[in-house]
């Protein structure tokens, strides 16, 4: 591949990184904390390419690449993420991952998470905190409290669940969190994002049902997919 083509590919790839960084779409793929690194990587890629381009223009010819000009054809593959980002812009992971993942709510005991719940009539909780409390908190702090959860709908074996994915680095390591809905179950299509308000069915999460708690829905509203689709 010619040096000029390599430089254009670098500019495109760096541009793709900057595009998803500034449009906020990066949250579909990676965790929030990566943003500064993504921007830096995009800027450096473009910078390295521009440096080479300007150097070539000044010399009036491409610098002979020290016997490395036979650079492998694999470099072409760098076009794939560019096309994927600019043309397809893959959506955030959804129900497909939940139904194909092990049906276990994968939580860990965390000492500092199990403090007191905030006061108030309706408590918005992350799915991570809700599921962790139902699995680990034996004192029943959630019982008789009205909670609001945000996630997407998914169905399996006739049951309806509200689910959300948690990531620690990128979407490749997404872990599903599920809550089984009972009561006034919304009849919206799968993968529709909802806010559900209601109460946990006390002691409904057990090892037998893979720590999936049941949740009595009192009301539910369809919402748009949040900017940050994953919990971390």
């Amino acid at each position, binding site marked *: *591949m*010619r040096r*000029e*083509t390599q430089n254009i*590919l*670098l500019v495109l790839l760096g541009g793709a*990184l900057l595009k998803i960084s500034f449009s906020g779409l990066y949250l*579909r*793929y*990676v965790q929030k904390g*990566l943003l500064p690194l*993504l921007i*830096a*990587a995009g800027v450096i*890629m473009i910078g390295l*390419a521009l*440096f080479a381009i300007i*150097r070539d223009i000044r010399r009036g*010819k*491409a610098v*002979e*690449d*020290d016997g*490395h000009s*036979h*650079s*492998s*054809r*694999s*470099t072409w*593959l*760098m*076009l*794939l*993420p560019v096309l*994927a*980002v600019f*043309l*397809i812009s*893959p959506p955030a*992971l959804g*129900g*497909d*991952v939940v139904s*194909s*993942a*092990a*049906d*276990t709510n*994968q939580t*860990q*005991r*965390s*000492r500092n998470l199990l403090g007191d719940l905030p006061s108030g009539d309706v408590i918005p909780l992350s799915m991570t905190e809700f599921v962790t409390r139902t699995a680990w908190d034996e004192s029943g702090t959630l019982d008789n409290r009205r909670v609001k959860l945000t996630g997407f709908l998914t169905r399996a074996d006739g049951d309806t669940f509200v689910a959300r994915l948690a*990531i*620690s*680095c*990128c979407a*490749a*390591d997404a872990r599903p969190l599920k809550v089984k809905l009972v009561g006034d179950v919304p009849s919206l299509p799968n993968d529709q994002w909802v806010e559900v308000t209601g109460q946990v069915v006390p002691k409904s999460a057990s090892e037998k049902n893979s720590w999936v708690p049941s949740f009595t829905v009192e009301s539910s509203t369809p919402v748009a997919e949040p900017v940050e689709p994953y919990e971390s």
Partner: protein
Amino acid sequence: MTITGEIRSSKRRSGPPRLKITSLEVLCGILVLALLFQSRLVDLLDVPKLRTASTVFVAICVQAMPFLVLGVLISGAIAAFVPASVLRKLLPSKTALAVPVAGVAGVALPGCECASVPVARRLMQQGVAPAVALTFLLAAPAVNPIVLVATAVAFNDTPMMVVARFVGSLLTAMVMGWLWVRFGKAEWIAERALARLHDHPGTNKWAVFAESARHDLVDAGGFLVLGGLFAAAFKTFVPVAWMQTLGGQLVLGVLVMAFLAVILALCSEADAFVAVAFSALPLLPRLVFLVVGPAVDVKLIALQAGAFGKSFAFRFAPATFVVAILCAVATGVVLL
């Protein structure tokens, strides 16, 4: 523009000289076609499995790129500012002694495996013994502080896991280094990997830095994408949940988790969170997952094949796989 470079790289020698198609025209052609058929492409990918695979693919690439960039910057800096003589002075002259030094030096590279491949190759080009550079390559992604802290956070109930991971990974890296001293052959490594960049006399050091970094980035970027493609395909189409149930037996569990570590190609900063989630498994197979993952996975094999050549990667990766399992099991039996 030099014509020789064009012919060599474009492989389209046959056409008459006036109509020469270079990679530049090919690139433009692809871009135009992609734009024309955009909606067709999007429709084609509108199957849940493919959608998931494409998201995971972009996620792996996006996640790894900053670390690859970090790696090529360090590599470029070594090329420009660290003369080979300094490296020779820093390392013990006996290779067998330099191996553990390189392993411990891995602590200083805060990144995942994508960063360490270009750095290791640059070290070789600067005259560091291959065994030493390879030990650094294996140790750096697994024993650096960021990874250890992430492991400690994930396994906050079992702090011994952090110690076991550190020891197991360092042991793997050093054993591989010593094995290379004893059995390794220089001709397995592609010639181009070891070819030193010519120092143009009078070239500005910063120019050397930028050119080396750019060159490494272009070289490794494609292979990173290739690894991402494989990992996304495996992640989407291999029934991970089903494999997890196989892990009930200890021996089978160790093998299954080692295999999963290779095909999932998780970043070493995230794999602990995935390992802790395999809560049905005993600790030992999960330790194997953490030790094998940063040392050998599809993304890394692709990067190594790109940096050092296929005949290297296809010997080194299986050997590392076996050594990593053995080291992890030995460490786990003693420490966990």
